[in-house]
């Protein structure tokens, strides 16, 4: 709960910062790395700890995989808030870079699935850029059906393999 509050406070702060600056200006402040002060024999007092929302498991940014129906490459409605949150985070952290990896299930040809995975990754990239991230912060790649997360040959596995992963 405390974590959540802190991260909300932090998000608001960041949002406030961001909205004060014109977008084009290159962020001058190399955002003092919001590193969690390592609790070296931490004393009991509840110190206010800054948490990078990326490291906060309860933050929406913890959602790093987006899923698709068969032969579909558009970001699904259920994933849009998470993609938007990543866009916002990237727009506020110009020094951060991400890699988007598109994947497909094993149905189709290997080459078609490579193209489909690439289109999935590129679709997420488009949304990130629309949401304020810079294209230069984003690299895309596809593994097609070559690196399945789940190895079964049924819908349970396939649904996990139709996926774009965002990797910081």
């Amino acid at each position, binding site marked *: 709960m405390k974590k959540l509050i802190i991260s909300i406070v932090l998000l608001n702060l960041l949002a406030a910062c961001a909205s004060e600056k014109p977008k084009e200006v290159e962020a001058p402040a190399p955002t003092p790395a919001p590193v969690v002060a390592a609790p070296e024999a931490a004393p009991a007092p509840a110190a206010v700890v800054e948490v990078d929302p990326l490291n906060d498991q309860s933050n929406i940014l913890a959602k790093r995989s987006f899923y698709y129906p068969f032969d579909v490459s558009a970001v699904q409605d259920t994933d849009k808030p998470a993609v938007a949150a990543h866009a916002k985070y990237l727009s506020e952290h110009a020094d951060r870079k991400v890699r988007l990896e598109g994947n497909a299930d094993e149905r*189709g040809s290997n*080459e*078609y699935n*490579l193209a489909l995975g*690439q289109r999935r990754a*590129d679709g997420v990239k488009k949304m990130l850029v629309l949401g304020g991230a810079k294209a230069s912060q984003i690299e895309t*790649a596809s593994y*097609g059906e070559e690196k399945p997360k789940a190895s079964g040959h049924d819908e349970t596995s396939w649904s996990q393999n139709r996926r774009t992963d965002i990797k910081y």
Partner: protein
Amino acid sequence: MALRPSTKLIELLAIRLSPQAGKSLVIRTGLLHIMVGLLLLAQASVAGAVLSIEIIGAGEHQIPVAIVPFGGDDKLSQAVNAVVVSDLQRSGLFRLVDPTGKSPHESAEVKYPDWQLRGADALAIGTVTVVPNGRIEAHFHLLDVVKQAELVGQSVSAKEDQVRAVGHRIADLIYEKLTGDKGVFGTRIAYVNRQGQKFSLVVADSDGYNEQIVLAQNEPIMSPAWSPDGSHLVYVSFETGHAVVYVQSLFTNQRLVLADFSGSNSAPAWSPDGKHMAIVLTRDGSSQIYLIRPDGSGIRRITFSGAIDTEPSFSPDGQTLLFTSDRGGSAQIYSMAVEGGAEQRITFGDGDSYSPRFSPDGKGFVYTHFSNGKFQIAAQDFQSGQVEFLTTGGWEKKPSFAPNGKLILFASEARGRGILATVSSDGRVQQHMFTQSGDAREPVWGPHL
């Protein structure tokens, strides 16, 4: 479009292959001298590979032929005989007449009435010996039993560890003489073997034996394709974290990066004259087809659909490309002139279609058809537009023609593994090749050397 009548299992072979280090080889057949430098591959062959082959079905008109066990060196002649017999059986076009009790090795020793009685139309005899320089030499004769005349008499020689190559060459000579088509037993295939996270690019004889590893790594390898002269492979590797196209010499193993743009670089196909390749890039947006020279220069975009355009395949005259596109809402096969012009959809009906490959005579193409959860190999004739399903459907993908157009190699699945398979162009005979371990994927038949 009726499916083939049910096929029955007529033969099952399981042959043990001893590991043989690949070395250079000269096959001498009459006036023909062929340097097969392919075997100079630096990497070791797959140690202790065990392969089994199953044949399903039989050709409509099988030619009855007797292969008399060759004379000379016992062990060698048995080995050569086994390859000849297995090649001919695999084709589905021959009925092997039992030669038991008769063993002529020279034409003069043949008593034709014996073989007419056994129903043989043709008879192969010969000897295999080791000559003083250590090479293997096979002298062989193919005789027409009905006309009582010699059809072929030739000598085939090779290095001592190339017994299989000698057998393939003899089988090709028999096949050519009796069917009128060029034999493909001596050609090679390439495929990707996947074992967990390990991937290897493999070149092997057309029967799956004599495997040579061209590239082995822990990242995926896809879409191998041959240069028209069989000297190079072009393929997709993910070793740098995304799909990049490489060209590699099978003589020197040297390779160059053909295309490494942002996004995916894939689906290479070599033009028949060897001067161009078609590849698929996403550098300008969606997957689109480009032409590029084999040295990576002269890149030029040729499709502009904004949809997925992939898997280009050149026609034998190099003028036309077939490719897969989802521009119409589902994956289908399209055709276009290489130099631009109207693109035309050529597959219709239920389901999706992928991976088109021109037949060597240019009159039709094979492709992968997907519907009702099943993949199967289909063939379409350009003139009639008629579609024929060559396999009954399961997990059968990525067909490619043997250079004589009579067999089609594809990726299949059996007993939970990815395997190599072939089907005759009339759909009557299938062959399943089980490699020792792992999944065989993305097979492609190489050219005549």
